[in-house]
């Protein structure tokens, strides 16, 4: 109950703060829900770290309000999707306790790595609509930074390179070299199963194939359809950030999934997200 009161007071704070905003035109009435919404990923970072006031103004290092642990605990409670994601209450409380721990608090770092974006997109592939999942990372440069495509998952490529689990028929026999590999002629004549003649550890590089198909004009970008961020920055925790476009006060960029995970489990999670161990 006490917790709920805290969240309510924070929301009231957002509403009251709206009176202090500068005005820029003809205005509409109640915008309390818009104040409560976490409107940008940037705002998620600031609220997570308690680096902005209730009006959304940046609090800079040196101010007594900068990263205030008390405010952080309040902010963090409203940064979870409390309507659909059903995040375990114990996990949530454990996470908040750890990241606001007085001795060694954890703060999200935009340039700290260990987080990436999963961008669902729609492409036309040989005229047919297909989903491509792009994995994007923020890359630091000599000057500034930029988002780069780190990986891609494209279902048609998976099907194209699916190898038989127990292949006992399609192989190049161990004395092929004595005939100067003349039997290559046979394997390349059957295009559909050429992957069977590759090494056991062969994994097609989807990104290279993807770029090749784009350059050949076989793939045509249509639209972005969904966006998720995966955060691995906090010790022993993984969380997922998504945007919730709905009515009410629990909207915008919110934590949609939270998992306690050690480094080994994080590696497994990363592979799972990248479709490497599914």
């Amino acid at each position, binding site marked *: 109950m006490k917790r709920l009161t805290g969240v309510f007071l924070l929301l009231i704070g957002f509403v009251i703060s709206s009176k202090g905003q500068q005005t*820029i035109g003809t205005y509409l009435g109640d915008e309390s829900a*818009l104040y409560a919404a976490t409107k940008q990923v940037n705002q998620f970072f600031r609220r997570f770290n308690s680096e902005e006031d209730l009006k*959304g103004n*940046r609090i800079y290092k040196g101010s007594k309000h900068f990263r205030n642990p008390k405010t952080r605990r309040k902010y963090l409670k409203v940064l979870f999707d409390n309507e659909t994601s059903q995040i375990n209450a114990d996990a949530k409380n454990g996470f908040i306790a750890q990241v606001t721990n007085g001795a060694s608090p954890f703060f999200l770092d935009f340039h700290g790595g260990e987080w990436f974006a999963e961008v669902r997109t729609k492409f036309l592939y040989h005229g047919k609509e297909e989903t491509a999942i792009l994995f994007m990372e923020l890359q630091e*440069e000599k000057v*500034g930074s*930029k988002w780069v495509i780190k990986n891609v998952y494209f279902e048609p490529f998976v099907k194209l390179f699916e190898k038989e689990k127990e292949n006992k028929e399609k192989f190049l026999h161990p004395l092929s070299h004595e005939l100067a590999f003349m039997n290559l002629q046979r394997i390349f004549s059957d295009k559909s199963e050429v992957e069977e003649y590759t090494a056991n550890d062969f994994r097609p590089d989807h990104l290279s194939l993807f770029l090749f198909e784009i350059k050949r004009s076989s793939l045509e970008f249509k639209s972005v*359809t969904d966006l998720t961020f995966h955060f691995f920055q906090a010790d022993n925790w993984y969380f997922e950030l998504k945007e919730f*476009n709905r009515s009410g006060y629990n909207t915008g960029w919110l934590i949609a999934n939270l998992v306690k995970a050690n480094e080994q489990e994080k590696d497994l999670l990363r592979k799972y997200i990248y479709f490497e161990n599914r």
Partner: protein
Amino acid sequence: MKSLYKILFVILLSSSIQVNLFAQDEVSPERKQAIDSLALEKVKDLGKYISIIGNKDTEFSEANRVIERALELFADGSQMGVSSLSRPDVKYYGVREYFERLMALNYDRVTIQWFNIQYISDLERQPDGKYVGVITIYQRFQGESDDGLKYMDTTKKDITIYVERKETQIGGRIIGFWDVLLGDIRVTETTT
């Protein structure tokens, strides 16, 4: 409006004469505030231009003149990415195309109302040295025809701003100033 621009221009100019800001990575809080104000003014101008362009009472030649003015606010090649609640796929328009489509809508009355809220991100540096930020605003668009037909939506607009350090020569002296241009705009229909 022009005088306000002048004041902001002078503030930005005077606060930056003696410092070589190309070498500087962080924008100070004071300068960030001045840049935010300038960017918000541009966003506000854009709202006004959209009202004029979308209004049937606006002469064709005047609407085209306003489109040219509106385009001056944007960096070259900027796009609008629009999605609605019923159609989540993003539809992409060049800014000129977006304005021309708006002009073609031909409502008898167009009202653009703002929610009294805007959120301005931090400025991040790009590899080309420019800074980039995002301003989020909420608007309600209402188009009404004399025959009673009405279209209304509320949208969240995430507007890219590019902030660039430039130099100009005044009276033989090279003076630096900050230039703000609008970039891509993501328009999302909301339930508000």
